[in-house]
């Protein structure tokens, strides 16, 4: 079976005058549909570059990125926007909610541009925010804001959920709760989730762990028995 996400020899090279910076230097990996994948690596290893390329925010210098069989490296800018619009749900480290929209409205904002969105209230209820829908971001805690952010991503009904250090700005317990939410979403809805973190302690909960170092994949671990989040500690 063809993998759902495939990166083949993806390179991203920035030219700063004379100097070439190889942010991604031939990355290869595959992720199956419905998997919970974690991309781990130290700062500057190229995690974010991978994420940007996967999220359609940046284009690879060379190589192939196949999402559900489509090679997005060949997309034109406008197609890339469409890709972001329809296929990708993005969870930011700093939630990036629109401050003067309520939780519900923030979700609706994303739905406005989608073709087959889910119901905003339902999704919010699913992430456990049924009582806080009318609140503005500033009235929510960090974890709650991240839940809104996840709800916003999920409501678009994307093919792929990309999470950029979703627990980075959260405390331990909240972070765990968020990870649980993501894992549950993956398990229950069969959503493909790619989580990017520098925290390798999270790795055991993933189906697949991709280690990146110096712009290359150093190893890929297939985890046949991922552990529940609750059991992980860091």
């Amino acid at each position, binding site marked *: 079976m063809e993998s759902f996400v495939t990166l083949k020899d993806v390179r991203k090279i920035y030219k700063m005058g004379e100097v070439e910076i190889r942010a991604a230097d031939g990355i290869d990996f595959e992720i199956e549909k419905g998997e919970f994948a974690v991309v781990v690596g130290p700062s500057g290893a190229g995690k974010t570059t991978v994420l940007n390329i996967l999220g359609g*925010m940046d284009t690879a210098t060379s190589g192939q990125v196949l999402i559900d069989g489509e090679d997005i490296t060949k997309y034109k800018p406008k197609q890339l926007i469409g890709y972001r619009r329809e296929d990708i749900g993005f969870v930011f480290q700093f939630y990036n909610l629109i401050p003067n929209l309520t939780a519900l409205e923030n979700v609706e904002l994303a739905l406005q541009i989608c073709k087959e969105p889910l119901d905003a209230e339902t999704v919010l209820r699913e992430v456990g925010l049924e009582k806080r829908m009318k609140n503005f971001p500033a009235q929510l805690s960090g974890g709650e804001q991240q839940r809104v952010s996840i709800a916003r991503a999920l409501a678009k009904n994307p093919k792929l959920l990309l999470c950029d250090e979703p627990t980075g700005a959260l405390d331990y317990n909240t972070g765990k709760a968020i990870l649980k939410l993501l894992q549950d979403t993956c398990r229950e809805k069969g959503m493909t989730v790619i989580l990017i973190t520098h925290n390798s302690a999270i790795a055991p909960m993933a189906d697949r762990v991709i280690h990146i170092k110096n712009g290359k994949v150093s190893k890929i671990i297939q985890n046949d028995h991922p552990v529940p989040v609750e059991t992980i500690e860091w």
Partner: protein
Amino acid sequence: MKKKALRKEFWMAVRKSKGRFFSIFFIVALGVAFFSGIRSSEPDMRISGDTYYDETNMMDLKVQGTMGLTEDDITALSKVEGVERVEGGYSVDAVTKIGQNEKVVHIQSDLPTINDISVSKGRMPETVDEILLDEDFMESSGYQIGDKIRFSSGTADEITDSLASEEYEIVGAGSSSCYISFERGSSLIGNGEIAGFAVVLPDAFSMDVYTEAYLLVEGAREETAYTDGYDERVKEVKERVEDIADARCEERLSQIREEADIEISDSEQELQEAREEADRQLAEAGQKISDSEKQLSDGRQQVVDGQEALASGKEEIDSRKGTLQEAKDQYESGMRELQTGKDELDAQRKSFQAKRDAAYDEFDRQEAILKENEEKLAQTAELIESGEAEIAKQEPKLEEARKSLEEGKEKLNAAKEIFLKEKEKAEAEIAEKEQEIQEGQEKLDELSRQIEEMERQIEENPDLSDILTPVLEDLKKQWKEGDEKLQDARQQIEEAKTQLKEKEEELNIQEAKLAEMEKTLESSERMLAEKKEQLADAKVQYQAGIEKLNAGKQALLDAKEEAEKGFAMGEAQIQEAEAKLQSAETQLMDAENQIISGEKLLSEAENLLAEKENQLSEAQQAILSGEKELAEGKEEYEKQKREAEEQFKEAEQKIADARAELDEIGLPTWYVSDRDILTEYTSYGENADRMRAIGEVFPELFFLVAALISLTTMTRMVEEERGQIGTLKALGYGKKSIAGKYLLYALLATLGGSVLGVLVGEKALPYIIIYSYRIMYTHLPHIVIPYQWSYAAMATAAALACTLLATLYACYKALAAQPAELMRPPSPKEGKRILLERIGFIWKHLSFIWKSTIRNLFRYKKRLFMTLAGIGGCMALMVVGFGLKDSIMCIGTLQYQELQVYDGMVYLSDTITDQEKADTKELLSDMKNVDGYAEADMRRVQVSANDQGDAESVYQCIVRDKDDISRFLVFRDRKSQETYELTDDGVILTEKMAKTLDVKKGDKIYLGAEGEEKKEVTVTDICENYMEHYVYMTENLYEEVYGAVPEYNTLLFDLKDNSQKKLDQTGEKILKQDGVMNVTYTNSIEDQLNTMLKSLNLVIVVLIISAGMLAFVVLYNLNNINITERRRELATLKVLGFYDNEVSSYVYRENILLTFLSILIGMGLGWILHRFVITTVEVDVVMFGRVINWQSYLYSALFTVAFSLFVNWVMYYKLKKIDMVESMKSVE
């Protein structure tokens, strides 16, 4: 240099944020330029004026005495403390005629050093009969240098009472600092309006005392005109001059009295002498009258005699004329007959000529035919001859041929005979030979049988062969020989036969030849015979032709002879007729000569008679006129006598009056006035004040916006660098060093902007403003625009205060916080529910996107108010700019097309007689193009709100027909447009004056000519009016109030066709009327007004452009801030998959909403501001319109929208450039 790093960071910050730095720089520059520029315009206007005044030594004080000023007065004035210089001068108002119009000219004497004239063309007058004219007047009147100009006094007095002569030569044109614009003041003569001034030498005046004295005040020159310093300095001296006035006046009075006494006694003396002289003259006249009477009666007798002689002469001539006429008739009938005779003869001659010509032509034709026939015959004869010759030649030849033929035949026959003989012989020989051959053959055949026999024997007996063989051989040999001989014989026969045959053939050929020859000969003979026959025929014909020809010739000759005979006869007849006519003509000629001489004689006689008659009628005429003269002379004599008596009586009365008057004469007065009596001097000062009024409103608003912009920008900067501030603080830098950076940043931008603003603004704006005022004040030569450091300092200080305080305020919050707090992202602005959300039914109907937009607007309140204030302010400025234009430009139309709807005005002279007035009115009602006219009395009077208060000047207009006047003048309320009727209850006052006096409907006002008692009237209505002030009243009211009948001095008229051409035509006709002083046209006043008001256009354009620039800077800056602040939010939207235009519209929606809100606010604000500005910039005699046209709102709004669109367009690219990676960054 201990904080080198910090300093470096500062410069980097400036360089990195050029946009921000320059936005502060330019907004401050704009604000400062506008503030200091407009503010400086006021002092600059004054300085520009003052420079000119000082340059021309313009007077500070003017003293006028009601009885003039003497040399003693001048000396006394010069001794007053504080007076720098005094010069006495003369002046008089005189009337001159320009075409049909009378114009008033103020003639003044040239002062040595005060009120210098700026000569623009030609030179100053140098002799007493030279004059320099006002250059404006020169232009309007069309006079040229070198022209002569004539003056009259315009009153009953002679002009020579005040001027040495009536006529002057124009030697130059110039302007005076006393008259810097179009106004020249008013006069008591003419139409009351001085059209121009003129300068002559003092000696050109014939007055013995000065009319006025001009003073320069010590130290006044150093002060700037229109300032308090100047006013105080002059006022001080003015008071001192007024102090000596009384003493000087008394002195003057006693002097006058003395002079008068002497004059009166002189007069009495003169009267006595005159009386004696008159008596003597009357006596002489009586004598003359009786002489004349006698002469007249002699003359009458002579005339009667002459008339009789004349009558007889006339009869004689008439009878002579009768005879002459008969002779003439006869002559004429003879003449007619002669003519018919001549005509007939001519006709005959002509027909005869024609006939003869035809006959001759016929003869010629006949002759030609004959000649032709003859020629033809001659040709035939020739042919015959040549034919005969030919035949003759042929005949011998034929003969010869026949002969030779005959010979040939004979020869042939002979030859035949010989041949036949020979033949017979030859045939016999042949037969013989053949016999021989036959025999030979038989022998041969026998031989051959022997041979054959032998051969058979040989064969049967070969043995015998030997023996027989020789025999055989021999036999054979014999046979051979016989055969050969036979052969030869045969051949000989053959040959002979052949010879025979040849000979026969030869004969045959010859025979044939001969036969042929015979044939040809025969044909030749036949041809010859034919020819001969032909020839014979031709000869016969020819003979006949010749006979015919000869007969024709003969006939022609006969005919000619006969014709010629006929012609000769005709000619003789014609000649005879001619001779007859000739003699008839000669007779007639004689008759004519006789008639002519008769006529001549007769006309001579008639001439003589006419002459006589003339003489006679002249004589009669002379007698008649003599009689008339005599009668007149008698009457005149009586009249003179009476008049003389009367005059003497009058003179006596006068002397008595003079004595009485002298006793009554009052103390003269002095009027001491300063420059305020010069209307234009004052109005220029008022304009400067008005500029200050503008300067107090506009720049403030401008500045406010600029300050707000700086505040937002600096606040934004501090907020952006929050983290850095925290870091610096954490590192231990003091508050001062940290805040210093931002203060320095603001200081640098502000100072830079201020310097640029002052440098440009204080030069450019005053220049433009004074320049545009010079359209009105044409004679102001200088534009002096020094830097007004006080305003520069004020503007800079204000700008610095604004930006630095704003910076401090922005820093304050940041510096007060703990470093740790600073390094954390600021607690994000809370999203809040807004008021609108509580109004459920509106909120629910808004789309989601609009909800967010509206919440956004209220979230960034500072920005909201900034934008509203900024753009709204700019919009307001533009509305004011356009509105000013509307208000100013509308007044011409409103005043002259809606309120004063008449087309022209006729000013009547004060001295017009009733008859002349009636004639003028009749002319107006008779003219086809005049639709109607109304009578009015227009005079300047003083008006005040109470009987003591300050009086204002106003036109009092008394209307004769109050019901008809609505066709010419519309009284209405400006706001409600309700029209009023003029009633006998009270007056209608114009709006501006009502406001100046602060009177309302129903209030009382006080009216009266200057120096006269004021009368109280009630204001019944207040009407819309823009130019000048008027108080309208009815005739009845006037009579009631003043107790006198008004003297109507004006006719308002309305035309059916008011095109310029028709207007001029009508005006010209009216002007020709006696007693009409002047005609003015509403059209031309309107044009003039519009030209004048255009000077304000430039100021308005400056306003609009500046406002536009401001709007642009504000919009750009605010948008820039908006985008920078929301960079993260916008990046997130992009990550979520918003297209570029969706992201832009997310931002634009707010901008558009803000722009529209601002426009609405700007409209309101503009309306209020416009109101304020319009009332402050108004000139005294003018009221500007109060209405802003809707177009002005539209244009301002469009400009604002355009700026907004442009800025949004620029922003689109900024938005596009936002990097999505921003969304990943942590919150600063």
